[in-house]
């Protein structure tokens, strides 16, 4: 029996649930993870990633020494032809068999050299091309403190709002819709309140795999509390086994389906008149806009029987407590905003919002995507969702950061997707990437690759050289969650502590320290000083942010020592806010915003007859930087395409056969899983696997308001392929649950 030297309580680094972890450490090595059974978030339950998936921090490929390209170290001009390089030169010797110039070799160096080179290059580009040439990707995996500082560095020093992170690729559609209709963009209720629902809708979310602990609570709600669950999803996901109704809609047809539910609720007089009169506006126009969305019309487009749409509408509307939980299947569409609005309408019509056990609940993906957004890691907002084009807001932050009046940019910045599409002469020249992996997470990766090559200077701050870091000029080794202090804000707005369990490996440093060190070097070169960059600990950073962002005003590390607080926490004695909108909405009245149905940008045709929809797996995380360097990769080592038995038979594809999946933008070869988990005409690919990246196929069409790409629907063809066309023909996936 191993007796731990210490047990460190912290927060899981994977999904937005924010499970509480206890890391058992012996000789500076985490050998076991448990969770307290009285934890308010997860009641002691964890998923495979949280309990076992932390081992990437020990992976031999983890980079723990600062790296720069040889050309920078030797002071030579940048060589032609930026390519991905994953190997690091040994003792400074040229990397053998390098396909490109050895000047691109990664060479180990010290922090001083790496940060000075970074500061020199960033300042050179900034002084030459100005603020618009600078851009940064913040990181929904990093802490609130890390994100706050990085956006502050770009706003206060480089005077640009070209600050964004992966929220753009995730819930941007939901965020914009909620901002327009409600005036706030977080989950309205607490996830664990699901057991208080008596009817709830889960849509566009494969909760069992992506928010496993919330899925357990959903199952508990059904099995032990008599709740009825309605699943609206093109796939027969695990939750369907527990559902009262499953509406298998065609990908990208949310708008007609949910509008038809609204149509039924209005026509059958199931509306909550009191709520509509007291809490909303724009009802009449909205009702007129619903006229054409009959269940029969929706059936024709979505493929869901009109009668089931009626049943779902009645169930939800007649519930005492109804709630909606949604994921990326709503937002990742070229009409993601409209799609989220249709859900908001349902809540407004029925008044299923503003009470416990109800609500509009977008399930946020990353452990700290809510926090990174709160911290202003977005191009239109300072911390606290304060618009950058508002004079008062800018002045507040100018005072806080001691920037001269008028110094901060009032111009809206570029979004994640725009930053890369502006990577050309006269556009964005330098990109700082903290922990993100656009070369896996952007749509249409073949084009993303060209954009990455166009950049003049790229800084990667990460723990591994991932597909994006492999393009960088400088690599700054950061520490993972177990080697730093800070806070994460989970999907239900709970701010929780992250604690250091072991010493940083090698020379790696916590992100906040790297940023502060670099910021000081930048200011020295620019002969300019803002405040401040000499923090003694991360709490000081959080308090600085909270001095302007009132949602966090009452949060101190001491108050969240044992249990996190759910913001808004406006004062030091405020107990936190588990349920939002009890009295009113932030914008006053909830606004009905009529929407029209716009089909997805690329519909199947004779040449590309299948709809491809992408998503995630229980065992993996996003671009795979963490999980593919973990034992998790052993239990799910390869990408698979799910195809319906009827389609498979038609195309002569058997279970396990290699197939080529091709879209107008790219192709990959993967093995097929023939399964009724997907529906006829729809194929599914998880996008975690670099060697068969689903995003080579996806469409980079954007939602006009949220600028979120259409990951959830594009047209593809599927052909039988040969074994030797697979990236790893000898890799074995052997699982009972798939």
């Amino acid at each position: 029996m191993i007796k731990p030297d210490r047990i460190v309580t912290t927060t899981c680094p994977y999904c937005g649930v924010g499970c509480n972890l206890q890391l058992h450490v012996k000789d500076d090595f985490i050998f076991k993870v448990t969770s307290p059974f009285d934890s308010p978030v997860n009641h002691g339950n964890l998923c495979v990633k949280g309990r076992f998936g932390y081992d990437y921090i020990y992976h031999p490929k983890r980079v723990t020494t600062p790296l720069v390209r040889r050309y920078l170290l030797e002071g030579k001009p940048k060589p032609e032809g930026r390519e991905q390089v994953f190997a690091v030169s040994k003792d400074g010797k040229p990397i053998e068999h390098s396909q490109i110039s050895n000047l691109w070799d990664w060479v180990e160096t010290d922090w001083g050299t790496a940060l000075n080179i970074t500061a020199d290059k960033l300042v050179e580009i900034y002084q030459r091309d100005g603020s618009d040439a600078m851009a940064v990707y913040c990181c929904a995996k990093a802490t609130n403190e890390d994100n706050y500082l990085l956006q502050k560095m770009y706003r206060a020093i480089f005077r640009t709002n070209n600050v964004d992170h992966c929220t753009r690729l995730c819930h941007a559609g939901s965020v914009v819709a909620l901002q327009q209709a409600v005036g706030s963009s977080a989950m309205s209720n607490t996830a664990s309140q699901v057991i208080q629902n008596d009817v709830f809708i889960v849509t566009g979310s494969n909760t069992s795999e992506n928010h496993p602990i919330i899925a357990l609570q959903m199952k508990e709600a059904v099995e032990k509390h008599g709740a009825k669950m309605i699943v609206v999803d093109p796939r027969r996901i695990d939750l369907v086994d527990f559902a009262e109704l499953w509406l298998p809609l065609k990908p990208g047809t949310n708008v007609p389906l949910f509008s038809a539910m609204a149509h039924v609720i209005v026509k059958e007089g199931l509306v909550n008149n009191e709520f509509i009169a007291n809490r909303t506006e724009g009802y009449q126009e909205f009702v007129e806009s619903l006229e054409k969305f009959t269940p029969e019309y929706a059936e024709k487009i979505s493929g869901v029987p009109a009668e089931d749409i009626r049943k779902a509408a009645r169930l939800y509307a007649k519930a005492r407590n109804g709630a909606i939980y949604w994921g990326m299947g709503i937002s990742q569409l070229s009409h993601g905003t409209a799609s989220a609005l249709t859900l908001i309408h349902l809540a407004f019509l029925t008044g299923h919002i503003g009470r416990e056990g109800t609500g509009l609940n977008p399930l946020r993906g990353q452990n700290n995507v809510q926090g990174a957004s709160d911290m202003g890691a977005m191009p239109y907002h300072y911390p606290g969702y304060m618009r950058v084009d508002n004079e008062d807001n800018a002045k507040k932050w100018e005072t806080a950061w001691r920037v001269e009046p008028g110094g901060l940019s009032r111009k809206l910045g570029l979004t994640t997707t725009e930053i890369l599409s502006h990577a050309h002469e006269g556009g964005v020249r330098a990109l700082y990437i903290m922990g993100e992996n656009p070369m896996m997470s952007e749509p249409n990766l073949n084009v993303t690759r060209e954009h990455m090559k166009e950049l003049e200077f790229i800084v990667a701050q990460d723990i591994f050289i991932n597909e994006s870091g492999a393009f960088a000029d400088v690599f700054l080794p950061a520490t993972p969650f177990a080697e730093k202090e800070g806070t994460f804000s989970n999907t239900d707005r709970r701010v929780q502590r992250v604690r250091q369990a072991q010493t940083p490996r090698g020379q790696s440093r916590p992100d906040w320290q790297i940023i502060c060190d670099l910021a000081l070097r930048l200011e020295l070169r620019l002969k300019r000083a803002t405040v401040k960059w000499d923090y003694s600990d991360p709490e000081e950073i959080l308090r600085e942010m909270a001095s302007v962002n009132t949602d966090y005003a009452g949060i101190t590390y001491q108050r969240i020592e044992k249990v996190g607080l759910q913001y808004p926490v406006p004062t030091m004695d405020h107990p936190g806010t588990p349920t939002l909108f009890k009295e009113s909405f932030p914008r006053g009245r909830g606004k009905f915003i009529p929407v029209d149905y716009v089909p997805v940008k690329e519909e199947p045709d004779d040449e590309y007859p299948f709809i491809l929809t992408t998503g995630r797996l229980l065992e993996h995380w996003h671009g795979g930087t963490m999980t593919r360097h973990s034992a998790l990769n052993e239990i799910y080592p390869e990408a698979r395409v799910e195809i319906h038995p009827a389609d498979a038979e038609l195309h002569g594809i058997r279970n396990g056969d290699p197939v080529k999946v091709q879209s107008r933008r790219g192709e990959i070869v993967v093995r097929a899983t023939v399964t009724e988990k997907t529906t006829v005409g729809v194929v599914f690919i998880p996008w975690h696997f670099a060697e068969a990246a689903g995003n080579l196929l996806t469409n980079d069409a954007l939602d006009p308001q949220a600028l979120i790409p259409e990951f959830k629907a594009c047209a593809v063809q599927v052909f039988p392929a040969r074994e030797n066309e697979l990236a790893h023909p000898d890799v074995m996936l052997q699982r009972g649950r798939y």
Partner: protein
Amino acid sequence: MTENITLTIDGQQVSVEQGTTLLKAAQEIGKDIPTICFHEATTSNALCRICVVEVEGQRLLQPACIVKAAPDMKVQTRSERVMRARKTILEMLASTMDLSDAPAILTMMDEYGARAERFPDAERREVEVKDDNPMYVRDYSKCLLCWRCVQVCASDAQYTFAINFNGRGYETQIGTFFDKSIPETTCVLCGQCVAVCPTGALKPKREFLLEQGMSPNEISVMNTGRKRRKT
């Protein structure tokens, strides 16, 4: 409003809410009844019987983890009969299974004066360690069949139903259906079972390897290999 119930535990009166178990009622007046299979987060099934108490008027000893308090009940938590039963339970456990990873039970044995050698002819349950996945190992020589792992895999937490009791009587063992390897079952490798195991029969792989004498560095490079398709 639920009505309160008054009962007597070891001569002391206690008033509790209706539906309270004897275990909880005793806790309210600071009397700790020993438990092994009981866990706050799982449904109690009174399998191990270590929590038995004597209730006046009842022929048999009653398991305190599931028996509810009733009006005017007279309960003895440490009568001679109770102590003898607990001691025998511990001795029977010690004679058939490996308790080396269950310090709480070993302490209990000392407290009750239980002798592991009381049943010298008992057959120890010795099973090979099942090491069939990269996340956790199963050593059923250390299993006392408390049922917690089965329950959290089922409707106490996970709704996955990957494991259950296999076999009957002495041969009873926790296992997968058809004794399939863990990755081939419906198991999602959440490790809820590992978290509730009281005897170290279920153990994270990395803890197991550390015990086997591997160094953290050796363990760290282990997981980088890929499983290969059998040709």
